[in-house]
């Protein structure tokens, strides 16, 4: 009896070792309800313990688009690509209007403000070093009004740096 039981156990182990059933499907294949093949492109980056990660990415970008994107980057860069997509998807879920671009806008304004403050402080230091009176506070700003690195136009309403000319839409189509 013991021998029969042991034989049965050995058989089950053999079956499991020969098929992919030994590994649980990745979160992507679980969500899409398909067999998780050994060469599944999503498997290394969407573990089954994080189902929400793939759910967000799929909802915003789509599994097909994500798969194409991953195929276009080098294998050692895919983890970073997936993490950035997951971050952007989560941001878009929280804020459907601006997504992660809202954070960029806030940070850009902060950079501009801090740089102006630094320029003014340096200017005061130079004046003190030359034994001159410091300039009045109101006239110090203006040396670096736009820290735009030439990437595009500044939208005055939202202070986003858009790479395209947005004059053609938005005004008459709301």
């Amino acid at each position: 009896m013991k021998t029969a039981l042991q034989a049965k156990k050995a058989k089950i182990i053999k079956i499991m070792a020969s098929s992919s059933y030994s590994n649980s499907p990745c979160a992507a294949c679980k969500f899409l309800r398909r067999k998780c093949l050994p060469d599944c492109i999503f498997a290394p980056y969407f573990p089954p313990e994080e189902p929400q990660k793939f759910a967000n990415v799929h909802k915003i970008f789509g599994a097909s688009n994500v798969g194409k994107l991953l195929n276009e980057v080098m294998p050692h860069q895919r983890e970073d690509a997936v993490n950035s997509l997951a971050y952007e998807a989560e941001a878009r879920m929280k804020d459907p209007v601006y997504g992660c671009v809202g954070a960029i806008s806030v940070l850009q304004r902060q950079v501009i403000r801090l740089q102006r403050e630094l320029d003014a402080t340096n200017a005061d230091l130079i004046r003190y070093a030359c034994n001159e009176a410091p300039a009045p506070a109101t006239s110090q700003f203006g040396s670096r009004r736009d820290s735009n690195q030439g990437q595009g136009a500044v939208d005055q309403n939202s202070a986003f740096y858009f790479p395209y000319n947005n004059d053609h839409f938005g005004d008459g189509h709301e």
Partner: protein
Amino acid sequence: MTLKGGTSQACAACKYQRRKCHAECPLAPYFPPDQPKMFQNAHKLFGVRNILGILKNLDPDQKTEAMRSIIYQADIRDRYPVHGCLGIICQLEYRIWQTEEALRAVHPQLEMYRHHYHYQQEDVPSQLELGMAPPNNNNSNSLPLFNQTPHALPLSGSYSSINNNSTTDMDSKDNAVNSMWIQHQYATPTTNNSNSIAIQSHQPLAIQQEVIHDYDEMHPFFDTIDDRQSYIDSKEAYDSSSEESLKDTTQSIEHVAENELKSAAACFSLISINR
């Protein structure tokens, strides 16, 4: 593809999908026919169905803003396929940290200068009126600026070089961000504010490691600020401290006062002044 009997051209979305662009096309306002790349990027990242899904529940004015952000996000992803907008966010956070550190270094100096300047303004006139020399100020911190290492004074020239450096890094496809944010992990959101996502998920330890490396690189930038640094060096050689300049001023004033007394005395006596 043009509309039957109409004069308007099909939008970039319908052109790309090779279908008829009707008057109520939801994407037509946002994808003009003369900018096909804009739609291609958006289509590659999001897909038409997902874009329409995002727009579905928004007000008309929100739709415009949403499309702008979608187009921007897609463009950034096209430029930087690996890191996308997250790379931009990490770079901006790093620049903020750099600028804040520079301000932290510079503010105490400014306060010291301010204090010294006001002290100078108050004391010198009264001392001179009495004909007295000002107290010999042995405070070696009077002009600490000239004695400090260059990186404590980040002038706008250095910012432009840092600026150029960051621009160059961004242009080299995703190489700038690399180890700085690779440790950034996908974090379960804990707040409702999307603007705080980047800041909360920030890995400060990784940033600091990168900063130490960058400070080693920053010293050559300050060597390029030739004009100002050479001015400072020459001034340092000529006038190493404010006490010496004060002494010179006082001595010249005393010299003038002495001359006046002597010339006045010469008017009333036979004492001649030999110089």
